[in-house]
């Protein structure tokens, strides 16, 4: 019985469907993500990327389909239980506790986990937040707020990290720094799904890419394959 378990991907999504106001934002979507993968999700506006994330993290309940994580069906699980299972989300619009200090933000995020979290310390150092613990989070620069939110997510020690537009509003330098950080994080064994519009970021990461269109997986492959795909260029890249 051991081999099928090993072949089981970390995350498997089957026939996932969710409609909002008459529009099927996610439409019978199938997806599998292997442990340790770093994958970018791209697609035009309204392709269902953020909805997929909200379904994976449990903010919304799907109308149909199921979500399997580490071999366990988590479709009915409430959001906080999914976090405890190891799925954590960084929201599209930055959501940190602006009124609290950076350190206090982290205190909340660390939960009942006591003792050192080496990865978090490392991340804080890399992202330039280590010296900022006594500053109100709302006073940080926009990109630092984005990074703080990633750190909050990391504090929960996730196995699968969902990053929704982590570089929105960043300068090219900051985008590059974020991309490097994400690659290093992936190198430490965290499975990461990134929704991103910024193709510079996607190229920098240069890993597997999944294209969503009208709530379905439209194409799947390496960056080169996707960029070579005519249909994708038409619906998505062509727009730029």
């Amino acid at each position, binding site marked *: 019985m051991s081999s099928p378990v090993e072949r089981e991907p970390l995350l498997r999504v089957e026939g996932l469907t969710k409609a909002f106001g008459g529009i099927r934002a996610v439409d019978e979507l199938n997806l599998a993500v292997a442990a340790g993968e770093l994958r970018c999700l791209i697609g035009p506006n309204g392709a269902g990327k953020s909805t997929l994330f909200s379904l994976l*993290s449990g*903010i919304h309940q799907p109308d149909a389909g199921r979500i399997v994580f580490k071999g366990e069906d988590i479709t009915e699980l*409430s*959001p*906080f239980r999914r*976090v*405890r299972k190891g799925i*954590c*989300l960084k*929201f599209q619009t930055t*959501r*940190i*506790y*602006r*009124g*609290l*200090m950076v*350190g*206090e933000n*982290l*205190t*909340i*995020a*660390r*939960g*009942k986990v006591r*003792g*050192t979290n080496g990865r978090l310390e490392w991340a*804080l150092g890399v992202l330039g937040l*280590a*010296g900022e*613990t006594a500053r109100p989070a709302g006073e940080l620069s926009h990109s630092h707020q984005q990074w703080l939110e990633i750190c*909050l*997510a990391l*504090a*929960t020690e996730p196995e699968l990290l969902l990053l929704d537009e982590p570089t929105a509003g960043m300068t090219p330098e900051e985008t590059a720094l974020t991309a490097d950080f994400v690659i290093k994080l992936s190198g430490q064994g965290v499975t990461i799904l990134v929704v991103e519009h910024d193709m510079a970021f996607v190229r920098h990461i240069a890993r597997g890419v999944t294209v969503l269109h009208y709530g379905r997986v439209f194409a799947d492959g390496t960056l080169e394959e996707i960029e070579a795909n005519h249909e994708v260029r038409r619906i998505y890249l062509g727009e730029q």
Partner: protein
Amino acid sequence: MRGPLGIFSRVGGRQDLGRGAAFWVAFAIVALGLVAFPLFGSAFYLSNLANFFVYVPMGLGLCLLWGYGGILSFGQASFFGISGYVYGIVAQNLSLTPGASLLGVAAAILATVIVAALFGYFVFYGQVSAWIIPLLTLVLSLILETFMAQTAGYQWRIGHVLLGGYNGMTGIPSIQVGPLEFGGASIALYLLTVIAMLLGYLGLRLLVNSHFGYVVVGVRDDVERTRMLGYNVARMQVTVFALAAGLAGLSGVLYVSWGNYINPSSMGLYAATLPVIWTAVGGRSSLIAVTLSTVALKWLADSLAVRGGEYAFLIMGALLLATMLFFPAGIVVSLNRLWRRARRQAP
């Protein structure tokens, strides 16, 4: 490890006004003054002050719930009333048993917490929007007041204690520990209310500066974010709701020990809004501000009653509206901010 992620869980932590030596010296002086007051205060002033202090735990509970937890509730008076009635039923039925009144206190607060947890379960696990909770807690007050008001007559009795309907429950014994009776105008009750107030304040201050307290604040600031950090937000809210109710229950027990009487109007519409006024006017984000405003506003209502009572409600309403318009954070909190700004600019 405390280095850069320093844990802020100390009483003097950031989640309240009043940090630094000057505050704590002043706090100690006031506390000592209150404890020493029976040496020179008259029985009437003791009774009167005790009456003001009785309500402080209830106010602090709402401060925790609304100011720190972001949940506005008009239900504090309901829990105050439930506790008072349960205490009355237990303590009066067992009046011949030694220690009956302590059993009554325990039963009262326990009952309050259980009812609050049940109500909280329905409301918070349903994940209703924030505005529904104040309305539903108002409805809860109305249910309880309407129900208790029609319990006149013999068929409404528990053991040999009559619920008493609209006229209320009479003959409730004061809390008694050995020979010490915590009656209306006694030094013992006065000191008990002072201790309840001080311990309530310090305990909650410790709580809001603990990890739990920060998560409560996190829930207030961003429910979704906190849930996404792996917290069972609904359970957290029920806990805070029940804790606030327990504090209101403590006030309820002290109140019946003070007045030996309770009736349905102590859970009615007006009673339900008083804690909201205290909390809003003082400053809901600060425990010390709410403590001060609860005592000050009880005192104000009392003085207004003595001279020209017609204006009492009017002044309360005007105060509430003016606070919401000009000091939305509360008067004490706003004054503190002004003072700090002035001090920063002075040198």
